[in-house]
């Protein structure tokens, strides 16, 4: 009697233990998923909180009297004369006149440094655009230097703790910033420079236009090469290829290439396209070639899946009606497989858009001030721009880098949602 009680007690205890193990196991699973989701959330909030500031830019509205004597030009001056005028010293002189209490070389220099180094050019362009402003006094919204910008956006008016970073402004500069702010001439506006300028050494003048153009051109080359080649390969392997050693070899190759690290494709591009064929460095054309070879396996594999999904009855019907093999494929199989192929292509393009390493190898890391216009202009791409900026010591570049990442992620999210939408919308279930 006592024996059986103890057995049932043991059993109950064991059962409780097993149930505890069960719930523990379940919690491991929940924790893992929670960790993954937390990573997604943390990554995005980190990037956004770092980068959101870059979408505004600080401007200082200053009064500038375009004195004809000081500039040495008048309204009838030619364009050449205006370009030759010394706007640099003119701008400094105007600043000194507005702040007569600033004396001493160091303080003066510190004052100039609060404005972008392109200030004289901006004034010059104003005169070039409209020479009648000569002799008048204009309110000019001048771009603030990145140190001013960073300080104003992140430190100004906050109770800073001891030792907290407030940028690289000197005490004198901070007092000047406060003076400007109290005068009500400092304002934050949406940062159009970020989208209209190409790269620059000055963070306040650096934009992503050049990189975006480079990415578009590179992706264009990649798309027009990889899509037809991948579709042709997929059609051949699925519809025409005899089952023999050569086609087996092609298949093995494609599967292996899908797993080759991207940096190896960069080595290939460097050795074959640049060194052997003598193509120029840093150009979207070569970048497109390399990315084509890299994305081909992805697109081929998904295109083959799409072709496989077309039921054989379609082919049989077409062949039965007297169509040739090629006609069957081109008129019937291909249109039905197209949504799946397009989905795969978009995913491949998204991969190519985010790729950095192989492009570093073929020299797309150059510092390029002009946005590229053709596929043979020197260019950089968005991910490489991110890489380059992330290396820069200025704090303002951290902000710019995060902003560029946000733009890149926006493109990627758009492309991937397009792929999902295409799949849901156009794919047919048989």
């Amino acid at each position, binding site marked *: 009697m006592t024996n059986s009680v103890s057995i049932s007690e043991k059993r109950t205890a064991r059962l409780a233990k097993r149930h505890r193990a069960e719930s523990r196991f379940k919690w491991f699973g929940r924790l893992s998923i929670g960790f993954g989701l937390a990573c997604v959330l943390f990554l995005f909030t980190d990037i956004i909180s770092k980068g959101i500031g870059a979408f505004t830019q600080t401007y200082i509205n200053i009064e500038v009297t375009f004195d004809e004597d000081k500039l040495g030009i008048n309204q009838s001056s030619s364009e050449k004369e205006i370009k030759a005028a010394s706007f640099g010293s003119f701008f400094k002189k105007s600043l000194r006149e507005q702040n007569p209490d600033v004396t001493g070389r160091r303080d003066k220099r510190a004052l100039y440094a609060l404005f972008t180094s392109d200030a004289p050019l901006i004034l010059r362009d104003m005169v070039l655009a409209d020479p009648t402003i000569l002799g008048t006094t204009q309110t000019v919204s001048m771009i603030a230097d990145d140190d001013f910008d960073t300080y104003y956006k992140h430190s100004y008016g906050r109770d800073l703790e001891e030792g907290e970073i407030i940028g690289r402004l000197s005490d004198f500069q901070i007092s000047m910033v406060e003076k400007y702010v109290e005068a009500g001439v400092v304002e934050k506006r949406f940062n159009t420079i970020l989208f209209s300028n190409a790269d620059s050494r000055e963070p306040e003048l650096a934009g992503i236009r050049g990189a975006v153009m480079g990415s578009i051109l590179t992706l264009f080359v990649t798309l027009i090469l990889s899509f037809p080649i991948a579709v042709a390969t997929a059609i051949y392997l699925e519809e025409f290829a005899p089952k023999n050693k050569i086609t087996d*070899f092609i298949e093995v190759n494609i599967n292996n290439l899908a797993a080759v690290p991207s940096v190896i494709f960069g080595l290939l591009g460097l050795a074959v396209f640049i060194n052997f064929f003598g193509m120029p460095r840093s150009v979207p054309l070569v970048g497109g070639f390399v990315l084509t*070879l890299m994305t081909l396996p992805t697109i081929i594999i998904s295109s083959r899946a799409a072709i496989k999904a077309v039921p054989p009855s379609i082919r049989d019907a077409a062949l039965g009606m007297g169509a040739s093999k090629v006609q069957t494929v081109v008129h019937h199989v291909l249109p039905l497989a197209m949504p799946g192929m397009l989905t795969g292509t978009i995913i491949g393009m998204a991969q190519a858009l985010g790729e950095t390493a192989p492009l570093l190898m073929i020299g797309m890391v150059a510092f390029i001030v002009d946005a590229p216009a053709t596929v043979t202009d020197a260019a950089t791409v968005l991910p490489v721009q991110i890489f380059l900026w992330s290396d820069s010591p200025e704090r303002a570049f951290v902000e710019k880098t995060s902003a560029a*990442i946000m733009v890149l992620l926006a493109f990627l999210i758009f492309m991937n949602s397009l792929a999902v939408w295409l799949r849901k919308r156009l794919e047919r279930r048989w």
Partner: protein
Amino acid sequence: MSLSTLLIVVLAGAILAYMLGRTQSYQIAKPVGGVRNLAALPNYYASLMGLWALLPALLLIALWSIFDGAIIDSLVRATLPDEAKQLSDEDFGLVMSQVNNAAIGIGGGALDEAYQPAIEKLKSLNNTSVQAMPVLAIIVLVIGGLLGFRAVRAENNARYAVERIFNGTLIVCSTIAIFTTFGIVFSVLFESIQFFRKVPIDEFLFGTHWSPQIAIRADQAGASGSFGVIPLIVGTLLISFIALLIAVPVGLMSAVYLSEYASNRVRGIVKPALEILAGVPTVVYGFFAALTVAPAIRNVGDGVRDWGAENGYEFLASLNVSSESALAAGIVMGVMIIPFVSSISDDVINAVPQSLRDGSYGLGATQSETITKVIFPAALPGIVGGILLAASRAIGETMIVVMAAGLAANLTVNPLEAVTTVTVQIVTLLVGDQEFDSAKTLAAFALGLFLFIITLALNVIALRVVKKYQEQYD
């Protein structure tokens, strides 16, 4: 005429040929009693004529663009003064590039009179090349079009020819994969062989010191460069190991929970959310690792050290976290490959037949017992294969380590120190200006070969494991 204009012209010519062919096929259809009596549809005649015009012209342009540089080079070489021909390879290349620069009008005056004929020759050849190619291409286009035009005959079945060309194009496209593999193998192998002529292969494979600083001039003091790959391998393995330590449990458990426990609704939301991690570009992870994770780890490390110092734990006092610690790069890389591991595990877990689960439940096992004692053993080959693939991915990953790991090759397994990896060295050796025959540049290719072999081997082994040990249930 620029290349792009020429291509547009050629394309327009081909379209014109297509339209001509179409008109002509209707013409020839009249005497034989309508289109139905032609051997092929008008579109096929038109396509044939268009292709006849297009393909030879394109081929000519492609070959010309590839080979004109080399041909011009060899012709110019013949006109160089004798003294230049006796120069060593390196100096000769320098002279050639000076001639090139002089011909396009930059940096003139660096060469003396004797080189003038070569410069003139290069200029005229370049001119000829630029002018001759479009003319020749258009001539070929017209001749091709005419040949195509002759093929538009009522009894000639144009469809056969068009389908043959179609088939041929498909075959050519599908061989590109083979050429890519050969391209990779040969380019990497060729440069590596040159490298191993300069640095013995055993020194490369078994050397424990890596500092690729090569003297620029022969008489320069100091730097002689040493190429021992062991520190790089250890660094790579250390970071990859940390990454797998994060990715494998998290990825596997997520996959288990999602496929065995979660409701359809939860799965529908959580799975795509986790997949986001796979779509984030590696450069973003690199930025995240370098600017957020690495400083955080460093701060925690400093905090622990200070705490240890205050509370008398002596061994903590020497704790020193590098700002480029292997741990930061490894953790972020692990996060990156979570979705990779989880999607592979998901596939293999779903491939385990339901009958095994039902059998296990029928014997009274709980769900977790079923998973650990029945499903895991059944899915093990697939999971191991997936882990190997993830390892290959981690070893080949570049941007995260370039941005977050160090450059100096330390031979250490301490995850708090800075280590460097194979991919970091490839990138740093090749980015920027480079000479193609220096051991430094060639070393990158040797590392590339090494990386290629390792990742390929891992992939092959992974596939083998899956194939060999996978149980067949149906």
